[in-house]
């Protein structure tokens, strides 16, 4: 009977005295009532009954203090709030310290990077005016409704651990710090609106709208909502934002080609206003430029090759049927429209041109290209004057196609022709 309640619990172990990468250690624990057993209960029981060397943090046990944040089966959460029954039934219980924080021992992490970024967003209230009586925001005002429960943040670090951006962008303060900034930015009583907004806008565009922070927050606060609110403030307060003075390291980089590493006591530890390593930044800039140039050149090359080269090549000639030879009386000159397809570079066009056909005898035809040799207008046969006339510039050709008037530089072009089963064909390009 007892074995039915036996669950495997894997706990991440890291011993600072031994170092290394850390590993999972498995424990078996009898959990008869998973609905009312929290992960914190599991940890306390294992520590008491099986392995007293496990290190983890907890304090209030009622979802108030934010000490026991950890990654439970791939999702961040508070050990005291997550019941064993909340986890997928087929999975072992897997406990792991929060991401993106140095691990001190087992499940205990060093939260100082979190609070360093927290401090960068000026997380304190600075009143505009001193009052002897409490200055409250009324509960039904829009700003209070906007702030909502976001002041409930307990700084457990779950959001920063779940965020895929915060560790890859040095200047990004993260969801918790920006939520704190948002609660103060929305507060009309606060005097530090401009510097706080400038700092928050500097980092809030690193959010990729993934909602990981919203999904894991044990207090159901949406970091994404706060970040979007700050981003919208940029639209309404564009003129209020003044760039912070450049950090001394920036000035130094301009004068000194080989600057030293960043000073230890920088006012902004998230490094958003400082030049982290000028040579690195210059390298990134030039690399981005080179990659962009390479992409542009290769794209232009592909497009150029596919679009331009075919037009340079000779067009293949093709034989096109004009009509039944019997329909052209001997001694006449006729105009017939022919239609054929011409493949031109990346597209195929349908060509519709008139062909001038003169029949001298049973077997003698002359086919003229109707295009005027001057500028390419279509010439037409005038049966009264017995001339080919071009309407555009007054060019005229005799019945053999020779120029008799106007600007055309040479006789009409003649097209190769042949008879096939009584059908007259011309060769066109």
């Amino acid at each position, binding site marked *: 009977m007892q074995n039915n309640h036996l669950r495997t619990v894997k706990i*991440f172990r*890291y011993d*600072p*005295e031994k*170092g*290394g*990468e*850390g590993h*999972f250690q498995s424990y078996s624990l009898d959990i008869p009532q998973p609905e009312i057993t929290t992960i914190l209960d599991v940890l306390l029981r294992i520590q008491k009954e099986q392995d007293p060397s496990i290190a983890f943090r907890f304090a209030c046990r009622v979802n108030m203090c934010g000490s026991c944040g950890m*990654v439970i*089966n*791939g*999702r961040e959460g508070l050990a005291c709030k997550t019941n064993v029954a909340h986890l*997928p039934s087929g*999975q072992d219980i*897997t406990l*792991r*310290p*929060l*991401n*993106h*924080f*140095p*691990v*001190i021992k087992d499940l205990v*992490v*060093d939260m100082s*990077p979190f609070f360093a970024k927290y401090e960068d967003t000026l997380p304190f209230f600075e009143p505009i005016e001193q009052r002897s009586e409490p200055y409250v925001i009324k509960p039904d005002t829009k700003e209070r409704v906007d702030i909502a429960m976001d002041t409930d943040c307990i700084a457990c670090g779950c959001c920063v651990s*779940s965020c*895929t951006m915060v*560790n890859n962008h040095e200047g990004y303060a993260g969801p918790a710090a920006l939520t704190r900034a948002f609660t103060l930015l929305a507060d009309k009583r606060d005097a530090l609106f401009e510097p706080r907004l400038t700092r928050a806008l500097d980092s809030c565009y690193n959010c*990729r*709208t*993934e*909602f*990981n922070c*919203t*999904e894991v927050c044990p207090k159901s606060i*949406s970091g*994404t*909502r706060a970040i*979007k609110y700050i*981003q*919208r403030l940029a639209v309404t307060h564009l003129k209020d934002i003044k760039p912070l003075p450049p950090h001394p390291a920036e000035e130094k980089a301009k004068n000194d080609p080989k600057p030293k590493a960043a000073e230890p006591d920088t006012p902004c530890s998230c490094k958003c206003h400082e030049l982290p390593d000028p040579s690195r930044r210059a390298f990134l800039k030039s690399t981005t430029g080179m990659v962009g140039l390479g992409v542009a050149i290769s*794209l232009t090359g*592909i*497009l150029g090759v*596919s*679009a331009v080269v075919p037009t340079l090549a000779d067009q293949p000639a093709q034989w096109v049927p004009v009509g039944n030879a019997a329909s052209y009386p001997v001694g006449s000159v006729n105009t017939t429209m022919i239609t054929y397809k011409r493949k031109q570079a*990346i*597209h195929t066009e349908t060509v519709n041109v008139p062909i001038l056909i003169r029949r001298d005898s049973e077997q003698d035809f002359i086919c003229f290209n109707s295009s005027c040799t001057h500028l390419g207008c279509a010439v037409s046969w005038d049966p009264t004057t017995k001339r080919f006339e071009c309407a555009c510039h007054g060019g005229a050709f005799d019945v053999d196609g020779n120029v008799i008037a106007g600007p055309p530089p040479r006789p009409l072009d003649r097209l190769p022709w042949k008879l096939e089963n009584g059908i007259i064909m011309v060769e066109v390009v």
Partner: protein
Amino acid sequence: MNASQQEYRKPLQWGEIDPYRRGRSHVGMWAWLLQRVSAVMIVIFLCLHLIFTYKPYLQFLLLLTVIFHASLGVRVILLDFDLVNIRHHRWLIPWVLGFGLVLFALAWFVIY
């Protein structure tokens, strides 16, 4: 042992030694990631489309990727400008993708 000799383990990265991470990651992250991947696919398909013209299967793939990318882009725009209440963000993804699919079907059957 002296405390100064003890070392912190370097921070664990997202998904590092985390057996259930990918299986239990959230839908918003996939929306972002797939939009990025589809952007690269658009560039590839666009080049192919310019080289091999009027190939229906290529046009089909290109239109599909463009609509997919645009739908997820519309999702971000709607959330950015607070046009949809942010608490519905999970439902927004199937809605915009479904809307995009309808547009895709319309466009495809009008062309062919």
